[in-house]
């Protein structure tokens, strides 16, 4: 075939790097990003300023004298009542609450989700529906009955009690995630395993679990942030020696002595948010993917 080169456009269509659509698109994104970044910026900047500089106004100006004093104070010196050990104590408690709560809630929810999608039994859907409706019940409704429940099983005020509460309230949404995820796995795999003589737990541990990594990531992220950020349960179902970090944060921020030490408050706030923030920044992509796998269907 002979090819005669012809006039006219040839090759790739020229793209303007700054087309109007692009300017609009990136412009919007950058503007919106500023809205989202503003609080973080303010918190970081303020936490690095000294009190005199703050009093001069302008929360948005960069610090003239960078000082880490507020961070040190927030971590280990800020006072609540007569305890002046800052957030440091709450951090340990938060970790001690977080790890068992996350593990327990995810283990239970994953088994539930697995049972619900692969081993349906009479009534399983009913219980699940109740559970899901439970996810939307305002916590306040449950506060009092749970106080009584914890009293009856003797876990009131202990870390164990709080772990239990977190497990209970994490269960609906996690179970939903796991159920949807397991239901989206090919049913034939489950059938094949049954023909191979595997039982409930064997299928769970040897077949399902190794395949459920993405959804475990989502569950872990959701639970870590949820539990770490929890204030209501932390304050009601624990006592000062087991207060999580958020409660300490609230105590520090609300213990106004003279004028508010904004820099310390911001540093404390940042310190408290550090763990979930790190997790989010580290796992953005996995999270989106997991959400797609477990939450969005149809």
């Amino acid at each position: 075939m002979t090819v005669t080169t012809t006039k006219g456009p040839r090759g790739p269509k020229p793209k303007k790097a700054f087309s109007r659509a692009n300017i609009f698109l990136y412009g919007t994104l950058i503007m919106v990003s500023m809205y989202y970044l503003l609080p973080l910026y303010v918190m970081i900047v303020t936490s690095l300023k000294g009190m005199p500089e703050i009093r001069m106004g302008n929360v948005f100006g960069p610090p003239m004298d960078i000082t880490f004093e507020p961070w040190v104070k927030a971590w280990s010196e800020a006072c609540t009542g007569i305890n002046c050990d800052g957030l440091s104590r709450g951090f340990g408690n938060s970790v001690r609450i977080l790890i068992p709560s996350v593990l327990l809630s995810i283990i239970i929810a994953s088994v539930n989700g697995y049972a619900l999608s692969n081993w349906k039994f009479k009534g399983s859907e009913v219980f699940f529906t109740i559970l899901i409706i439970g996810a939307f019940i305002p916590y306040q409704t449950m506060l009092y009955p749970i106080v009584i429940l914890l009293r009856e099983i003797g876990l009131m005020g202990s870390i164990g009690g709080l772990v239990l509460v977190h497990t209970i309230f994490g269960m609906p949404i996690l179970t939903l995630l796991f159920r949807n995820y397991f239901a989206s796995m090919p049913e034939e795999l489950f059938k094949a395993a049954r023909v191979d003589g595997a039982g409930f737990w064997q299928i769970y541990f040897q077949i399902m679990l190794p395949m459920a990594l993405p959804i475990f990531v989502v569950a872990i992220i959701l639970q870590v942030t949820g539990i770490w950020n929890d204030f209501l349960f932390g304050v009601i179902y624990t006592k000062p020696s087991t207060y999580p970090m958020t409660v300490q944060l609230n105590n520090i921020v609300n213990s106004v002595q003279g004028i508010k030490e904004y820099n310390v408050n911001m540093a404390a706030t940042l310190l408290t948010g550090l763990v979930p923030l790190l997790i989010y920044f580290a796992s953005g992509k996995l999270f989106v993917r997991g959400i797609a796998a477990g939450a969005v269907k149809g």
Partner: protein
Amino acid sequence: MANSVEIKNLDLNFGAVKVLKQLNLDIAEGEFLVLLGSSGCGKSTLLNCIAGLLDVSDGQIFIKGENVTWAEPSDRGIGMVFQSYALYPQMTVRGNLSFGLKNAKVPKPEIAKRIARAADVLQIEPLLDRKPGALSGGQRQRVAIGRALVRDVDVFLFDEPLSNLDAKLRTDLRVELKRLHQQLKNTMIYVTHDQVEAMTLADRISIMKDGMIEQLDTPERIYAKPCNKYVADFIGSPAMNLFTGQLSDTRFGCNGFNLDVSGYEFSDSGLRDGAAWLGIRPEHIMTGDAAHGASYSGTAEIDIVEPMGSDTLVWVNFAGQSVRVRTIGQSGLKSGNTLTIGFDAARLHLFDKKTELRL
């Protein structure tokens, strides 16, 4: 020959929907039975019942004479191969093959022996340490078969094992499966909705429709003597041409032609009169010179010509409808021309108009 699988009065309902209805089926030892039917007719459901993956609503299932209606899938002596292979993605091929055996607490050396044998039969030795993700479709399918093989089961169940593969591979694996059956001589129950697979693989084909078995017979007989209009229409590609008309003793007449059917081999039903369907397969319609000697011959206008290489499919307008005719490749026929076609009474099919049963 003893029956390997017996199904008695099987009912299966999903809620209010009756999927299988009073189904009976006996499968002989070593037989290759294909369940064929259109989508949604209950083939997979039946297979799952045999495997014990679905609880039957009523009826009984026997395997090797034993009532297994309520037995666990793993205790029934069955192995199953799925359409999507259903290999455990995180295990190596070896792990996949040994999973069931480990569950059954088979001793290690025995497991190794069986895997070696299966790998040999299926020629998958070089793949044993790979994961399923690193295998091609055909290889995966072979591993899936191997998984049933190592468990030394009496009955193999296949649920459309080849329909995820491309045409070429499907042909090859089909032949391999046939060879495997000749070698192993296990009972095999095979679900498909592909006629070619059914025709080529089966010792007997069971044609299903709406949860019931329409005809259970050898491929040859199903092709040559479909027991009712549904089967006749279902089997054969392109499908049989059907004309509705009036049968009176030895003649069939309809709007457009009339022919002598005294050469037709009537069944025992004895009926020879009344409204009827006349069927003839596209490949049995004679064309050109050959047509002249047939029981009936006439001319038709060619509508569409579909050359398919080895043969040509011609759509002609005849007796007021579009009739498919299959003829040799490179026939030189052209749309708009006229074609002489002929019907041979010995190769016709007649069905009662009302009951749709073969006459």
